[in-house]
C-alpha cells in the first residue's frame, strides 16, 4: 500500500519537475495580465522567483533609494526654546546614525526580497523583516514621543503577524502550494478569499499602511531624514506589491 503511493508521488514530482519551465511559460496568464511579460524565472522546484517589468522597476527604485539613503548624512534641526536667545543645531549622534544606517540598508534588502519573491510564505517573512527593521530604525532615538509611537507600532506589528502568517497557512492548507505561479492558475474559492483578506490585513499592519498610519505620522517627527524616509518607502513598496499579490491570488 505504502509503496504504491510512494511511486505515484514520485512520478508526479518527476513530471512536474520536468515540465516546470513549460508550465511557467504557458500558464502564468494571471501574472502576465498584471505585470507584463515575464522576462525570466529561476525554477527552484516549487519556489519560483520571476522577473517582470514591474518587479524590475521596483527593484531598481529600491536599490537606488537604498544607496542614496545610506550615503546621505542626517540633516540638522534648528531648535529654539522659550527663555533662550539662541538657535541650536541638532543632529543625530554618530553612533546612533551608524546603527540606523545599518537598519536602513537591512530594510532595503528586505524590500528587495518582498518585491522579487515568488512564494507567499517568503513574502510574509520579508514583510515582517521590513517591519522589524523599521522599528530598529527608531529604536535608538532619545525622544519619548517617538519611542511611544514606535512601541505602539511594534504592538500592531506583533499582532499582525497572526493574520499575515495565518492567511498564508490557510491558502497553503487549501491549495497545497505556496508558489505564486501555481496559485495564479487556481480558481479562487471562499477560503482563499479569506486567506487573501487576512494577508492584506497582515501586510497593512506590518507595513504601517492606511489605518495604522497614525503611529507612523508620530514616528516621523524624529531626526534623521534619510532613515525615516526609508520607512515611508518600505510601506509604500509593500503596498504596491500586495496589490499585485492579491490580484494574482484572485
Amino acid at each position, binding site marked *: 500500500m505504502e509503496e504504491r503511493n510512494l511511486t505515484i508521488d514520485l512520478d508526479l514530482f518527476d513530471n512536474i519537475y520536468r515540465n516546470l519551465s513549460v508550465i511557467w511559460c504557458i500558464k502564468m496568464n494571471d501574472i502576465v495580465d498584471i505585470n*507584463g511579460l515575464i522576462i525570466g524565472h529561476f525554477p527552484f522546484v516549487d519556489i519560483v522567483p520571476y522577473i517582470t517589468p*514591474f518587479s524590475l522597476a521596483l527593484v531598481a527604485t529600491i536599490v537606488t533609494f537604498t544607496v542614496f539613503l545610506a550615503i546621505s548624512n542626517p540633516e540638522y*534641526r534648528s531648535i529654539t526654546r522659550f527663555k533662550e536667545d539662541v538657535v541650536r543645531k541638532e543632529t543625530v549622534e554618530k553612533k546612533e546614525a551608524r546603527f540606523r544606517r545599518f537598519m536602513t540598508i537591512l530594510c532595503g534588502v528586505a524590500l528587495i526580497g518582498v518585491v522579487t519573491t515568488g512564494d507567499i510564505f517568503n513574502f510574509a517573512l520579508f514583510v515582517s523583516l521590513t517591519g522589524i527593521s523599521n522599528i530598529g530604525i527608531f529604536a535608538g532615538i532619545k525622544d519619548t514621543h517617538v519611542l511611544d509611537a514606535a512601541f505602539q507600532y511594534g504592538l500592531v506589528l506583533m499582532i499582525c503577524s497572526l493574520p499575515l502568517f495565518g492567511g498564508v497557512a490557510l491558502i497553503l492548507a487549501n491549495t497545497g502550494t505556496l508558489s505564486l505561479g501555481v496559485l495564479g492558475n487556481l480558481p479562487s474559492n471562499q477560503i482563499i478569499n479569506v486567506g487573501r483578506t487576512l494577508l492584506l490585513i497582515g501586510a497593512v499592519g506590518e507595513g504601517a499602511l492606511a489605518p495604522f*498610519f497614525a503611529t507612523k505620522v508620530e514616528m516621523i*517627527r524624529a531626526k534623521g*531624514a534619510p532613515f525615516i*524616509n526609508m520607512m515611508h*518607502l518600505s510601506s509604500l513598496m509593500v503596498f504596491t506589491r500586495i496589490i499585485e499579490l492579491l490580484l494574482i491570488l484572485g
Partner: protein
Amino acid sequence: MYYPVNFNLIYILLEIITAFIFGGLLLGLHRKVMARIQGRPGPPIVQHLLHTFKFYIKELSIPNTSSMPLYVAIVLAMDAVWILALIVGPILGGSFLIIIMCYAVHKVAEHGIGLASGSPYTKLGSTRAVLSATAEMPLIAVPALVFFKTDTLLLDGIINYQIVNGSLFTQLPLVALAMFVLVLSKTPYSPFGIVWGKDIVSGYKTEHFGVIRGVMMMGEILAFFALLWCFITIFFGGIITAPLAYMVAMTGITVILAFICALTPMVAPYHAVMIQWIFAILAVVNVLLI
C-alpha cells in the same frame, strides 16, 4: 502584448518633451481659468512654463542644515520616476501597476524633499505628505477594481477591452470618480493639496530655490500630464484614441479641475483624508453593485 526589441530614443525623448510642454501649458491654463473665475485677469497661459525656466537661471542655495546627497537626489528621483511612467504608459502600454508604483515613489519623494532640508516648515509639509498618503492609499484600490472588471492591468489590454465593450466610464462611474479625486489631489491649489498649503508657507517646497526648484517643477508637470493620461486612457480608452482627442480631453479635464480648485477652499488635513476615503468607499460600492 508585444515589446519591441529596438525602440528609438529620439522618439521617446520627443514624447517626454511634448508631455513637459503640453503639461506646462495645461497648468498655465489651469491658473488662467482659476483667475477668470475669481474675477482677476490672471497670468498668461505660458506663465507656468516660464516660471519653470526662470528657476533654471536663478541662484541655487542649499541650506546649511540639509542632509546632503539626499537633498538633490530625491528631487531628481521625482523626475526620473515620472519619466519612467511616461515611457511605460503612453509608449509601451505596460502595466498600470508600474504607474501606481511611480505615484507611490512620488509620495516618498515629497516626504524626502520635506525632510532633507531640516527646516520646520518643510518638515510639516512632509508630515502632511505621509498623512495624505493615508487618503490616497484606498484610492489606489482603483487598479484592483479595474482588474476585476477587465481581467488585465496592462494599459494596452484595458484599451482593447474598452474598444470591445465600451468605455469603462459608463461601467464603473464611481471608480472613475475616485480616480478623478486622485488627479484632483495632485493639482495645484486643489482642496486636497494639503502638502503645499499656504498655511505652512509652501509645504515641502519651502526651502527649494534655483535649479533644483526648476527640476522639481518639471517633475510635477510630468506627474500632472501622466496622471491625466492615465485617467483618460483607463476610463475613456474606447472613445479617445488619437493624440488630438487626447489633447482636447486633457484640456477639458483641466478646465473642470480649475473650476473645482477655484470654487473650493483647501480642507483641513484630516478632512482631506476623510473625504478621499469616502470616495474610495463609493468606488468599492460601485463594484459591489455590479
